[in-house]
């Protein structure tokens, strides 16, 4: 570029002329999102109203039959009930444990960052491998739980796949292990914003630590708790890795996402898979929004 043409002019003239650079910079991301997220999402919605069956071509209009068919399918109904339990157990436990961990870490102490580093480990690991790690804990003959029971002279361990509630509870415990670190971090971030003076004033007024927790910590942590619960809802409603590895296809623990996988990629009935996908997506959005409305409160400090 020749410096004779005053260089400042290029800076000032840019608003009037069409500026192509920002478009070039956002184009790749936009294309990826349009082509591999929005377009597929539209596909999923549209094709859930069609019969899309690799074993029964061609594709044709199905009306609502994919959806009504789902509710007539006992395996799907059972997977919905299972998933409801996963969500209920997972969101409750991860929120309670996450809050407890956040309160433990609220005040600075020597080694706090090390504890946080160790705490986030389970979040960083693949769900599939976590299933394998915990299988070693649950294993009925030589697992850690049966070993501890043996120390006390008791016998036995935990057999997955027999009792439905126990199976779901144990599988969800593994997912709780994975998602609680993020809950704890999100809640901890909210707690860090609470000024110490509030606690000092409460102490001067003779507030017990429990009262301080109920009246100061909990209300002010609500934004963090809401975000933590939303991430837990999304993770648990879509749970796949842990039940798939720990319990296989057994109906005692199959989740809706597992059922989607079986229907689409083993029975090749994509239309039904689309319908099921759409249901989980809508449920995820609806429950997440409900959580935000119920739990989230904007905090002014």
């Amino acid at each position: 570029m020749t410096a004779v043409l005053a260089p400042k002019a290029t800076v000032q003239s840019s608003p009037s002329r069409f500026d192509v650079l920002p478009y070039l910079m956002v184009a790749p991301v936009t294309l990826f999102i349009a082509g591999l997220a929005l377009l597929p999402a539209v596909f999923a919605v549209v094709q859930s109203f069609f019969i899309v069956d690799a074993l029964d071509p061609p594709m044709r209009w199905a009306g609502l039959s994919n959806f009504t068919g789902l509710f007539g399918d006992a395996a799907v109904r059972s997977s919905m009930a299972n998933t409801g339990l996963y969500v209920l157990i997972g969101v409750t436990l991860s929120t309670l444990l996450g809050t407890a961990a956040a309160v433990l870490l609220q005040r600075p102490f020597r080694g706090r960052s090390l504890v946080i580093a160790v705490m986030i480990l389970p979040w960083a690991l693949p769900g599939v491998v976590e299933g394998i790690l915990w299988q070693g804990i649950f294993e009925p003959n030589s697992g850690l739980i049966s070993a501890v029971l043996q120390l006390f002279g008791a016998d036995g361990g935990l057999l997955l796949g027999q009792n439905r509630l126990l199976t779901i509870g144990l599988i969800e415990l593994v997912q709780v292990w994975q998602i609680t670190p993020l809950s704890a971090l999100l809640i901890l971030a909210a707690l860090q914003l609470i000024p110490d003076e509030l606690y000092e004033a409460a102490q001067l007024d003779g507030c017990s630590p429990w009262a301080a927790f109920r009246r100061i910590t909990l209300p002010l942590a609500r934004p963090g708790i809401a975000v933590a619960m939303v991430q837990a809802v999304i993770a648990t409603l879509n749970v796949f890795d842990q039940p798939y590895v720990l319990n296989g296809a057994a109906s005692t623990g199959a989740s809706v996402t597992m059922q989607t996988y079986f229907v689409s990629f083993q029975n090749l009935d994509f239309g039904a898979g689309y319908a099921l996908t759409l249901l989980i997506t809508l449920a995820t959005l609806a429950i997440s929004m409900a959580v935000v409305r119920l739990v989230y409160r904007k905090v002014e400090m």
Partner: protein
Amino acid sequence: MKPARRIGLALLLLWSLVPIYWAVRTSLQTESDARATPVQFLPLNPTLENYRTLLTGDGEVPAQIRRSAWNIVIECGAATVVTVLLATLAAYAFARMRFRGRKVIFYTVLATMTLPAYTTLIPLYRIMSQFSLVNTYTGIVLVYVSGFLPLATWVLYNYFSSMPVSLEEAATVDGAGRLQVLWHIVLPLARPGIISTALITFLFAWAQFLFPLVLSSDLSTQPLTVVIAGLQGRHVVPVTLLDAAGVLAIVVPVVLALTFNRYIVNGLLAGSTR
């Protein structure tokens, strides 16, 4: 520190570490020691035999583990590089440049974050099979990148927005082009944000299971997670070998999480404040 807090912190550490420890213990034992009663809480006769088998043995299982470990490194590495590169360009434009349609494009990209990842599982599979990209590195990396871009863009957008504009303005007044400013001024300052984004993207990619389960049909592209889940159902594979494979699969994320925990924590928090 009060004793109750000490006990709480000890429980937190135990809860986080015991399942990992137990798999490491099993992986250092022989099969008969692992099944012995009373159960050995420590590996009394530790052996590296399981790792030697997986890393240098000839059988089918070691070959699968080695190939899928290679696959997962390639897929996660490529997905991370592409995601961070594209997200950096877009996030900088969104944060610092004014152009028509900026808000619409930005919020559309962010809106896809609210969809659960598996919403697009079946359509993505069908698109990839239309273009013969099932069971290719390209197909898997494309799907990963499309999934991770919104979060990466959001984290980097927040990072760029939090940086002071004054240096960039000074450089512009001195006659530097906008890409020069991005390359020489912004990127060096934004390094912590870029490292956070890269780490989170890499860890997400490493943890993927259902997408590669669907998108890769054989060992040429299957990542370690898919192969390990496949071994798990087969009773011929001893639990000691399975746990050694599991430990191999978590070495990389464990080392990254322990070494760079600050970057990861900051990135996660930047990514979830909405």
